[in-house]
């Protein structure tokens, strides 16, 4: 049996989304910047897509900038806002559990002479307003805290954090790549100035994302050229991707209630069974303030990459924050940040559930996991 439990890494394209994308690759292939009839048709669809995305996120159509994904959106926003506003202020705050694309953007700014501060997550994996209040000041231009953490699925109180940022006259950005459709994002109500999204995290296509930039915020572009996206992001509009992302976002919110119920039922059933049938397990991060699709589990006395490889051999896809699985041989910065002791850092597996998982797949995974853990523990020197 094949079981995909790595939906936090990427999701399978929904066939309904693919059907909406196909015409933009075959018949409606015009360049949305061209003024011939094919180009104009594409332009109208592009403008419509911005409206639809803005409506779902509670923002303005003009704020919707399509990018190649959340990595580009985060780079554009973090670096672009800092560079365009440096005459005013030069301090940036990000949390210590951000995705590497946010962290590395901030690190690049630090090397360029900006002051970068890290607001720490607590042991539950949450960035609290109190923690932000301790380090923010009137020198801060930008605060960036992710809506949902990619490894442990914990949910931050974005509205409360944005409010604090505004009290100090700073802009608030959130990387919401993992938040769709789990959070009901409302840009205006939540006080979000800048936001990043990625299409492939919610059953849309890869290679397309959104940088939402509120009107009036100065941003220096990463890409220069033809001046697309109000000069913020040059490059031919990726209509197949844009239309796919837009439709995927609509589907995600339209089917939200049933979807949340389904993934939660699968995850809770999975956790209840493995916790009962396998000894020495523990969940990393808050279980209450967490998206229902995520489970991040410690398996004492065995190593994460070995668990992953053993499951992979049985047709099951999961992921791990173990050092052995990382190119830089560093254990997960998120699990480190929430205070896991060093000898537990390499024994964790993320299971991320999704739209296409079935109960039969979960039962198969439970059986396989029990065998995997039993085998690896049988020869572990750690007792």
């Amino acid at each position, binding site marked *: 049996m094949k079981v995909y439990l790595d939906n936090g890494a990427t999701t399978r394209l929904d066939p309904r989304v693919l059907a909406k994308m196909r015409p933009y690759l075959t018949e409606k292939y015009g360049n949305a910047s061209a003024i011939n009839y094919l180009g104009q048709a594409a332009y109208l669809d592009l403008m419509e897509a911005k409206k639809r995305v803005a409506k779902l996120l509670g923002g303005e159509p003009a704020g919707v900038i399509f990018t190649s994904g959340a990595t580009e959106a985060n780079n554009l926003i973090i670096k672009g806002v800092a560079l365009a506003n440096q005459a005013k202020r030069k301090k940036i705050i990000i949390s210590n559990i951000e995705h590497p694309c946010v962290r590395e953007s901030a690190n690049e700014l630090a090397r360029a002479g900006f002051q970068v501060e890290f607001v720490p997550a607590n042991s539950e994996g949450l960035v609290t307003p109190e923690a932000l209040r301790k380090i923010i000041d009137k020198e801060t231009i930008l605060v960036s805290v992710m809506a949902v953490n990619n490894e442990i699925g914990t949910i931050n109180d974005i509205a409360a954090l944005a409010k604090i940022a505004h009290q100090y006259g700073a802009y608030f950005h959130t990387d919401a790549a993992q938040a769709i459709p789990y959070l009901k994002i409302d840009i205006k109500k939540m006080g979000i100035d800048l936001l990043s999204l990625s299409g492939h995290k919610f059953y849309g296509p890869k290679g397309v994302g959104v940088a939402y930039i509120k009107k009036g915020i100065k941003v220096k572009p990463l890409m220069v050229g033809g001046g697309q996206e109000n000069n913020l992001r040059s490059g031919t509009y990726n209509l197949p991707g844009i239309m796919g992302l837009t439709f995927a976002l609509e589907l995600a919110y339209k089917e939200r209630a049933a979807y949340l119920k389904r993934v939660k039922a699968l995850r809770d059933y999975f956790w209840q069974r493995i916790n009962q049938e396998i000894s020495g397990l523990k969940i990393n991060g808050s279980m209450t303030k967490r998206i229902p699709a995520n489970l991040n589990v410690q398996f004492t*006395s*065995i*190593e*994460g*990459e*070995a668990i992953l*490889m*053993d499951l992979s*051999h049985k047709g099951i896809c999961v992921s791990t924050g*173990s*050092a*052995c*699985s*990382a*190119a830089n*041989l560093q*254990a997960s910065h998120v699990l480190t940040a929430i205070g896991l002791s*060093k*000898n537990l*850092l*390499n024994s964790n597996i993320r299971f991320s559930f999704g739209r296409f998982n079935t109960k039969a797949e979960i039962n198969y995974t439970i059986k396989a996991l029990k065998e995997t853990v039993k085998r690896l523990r*049988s*020869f*572990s*020197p*750690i007792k």
Partner: protein
Amino acid sequence: MALNYSKKTINHFLNPKNIGEMKNPDGYSQIGNMLCGDQLNFFLKVRNGKIKDVKFLSFGCASNIATASLLTEKVKGMTIAEAKKYKWETVVAELGGLPSQKIHCSVMAVEGFRKAIADYEKKQKHSR
């Protein structure tokens, strides 16, 4: 990150040879620890200057298990002198290559095994 293990490495990971504990070993070692993310424990039996049996325990990734498995398979039956010369490069070659970030697993396996031989030799000196 690309992590393409050879078929042979995967086979050793899924069906490791010489795995388990040994009672009253002639030589014993522990290398690495949980803090680094990998650990190996080796157990040796030596008869007439030859490796009669060797076993290991592992807390580690697939290549940690696979490299120790292959190593123990190869050194069994060797004289102590031969076994001491067995190189990590040979482990890598025998497995059909290892991903670059996994080379250290083979180094650790060889070092751990040599440490077990050193333990055996130390005990020999004391018993004489």
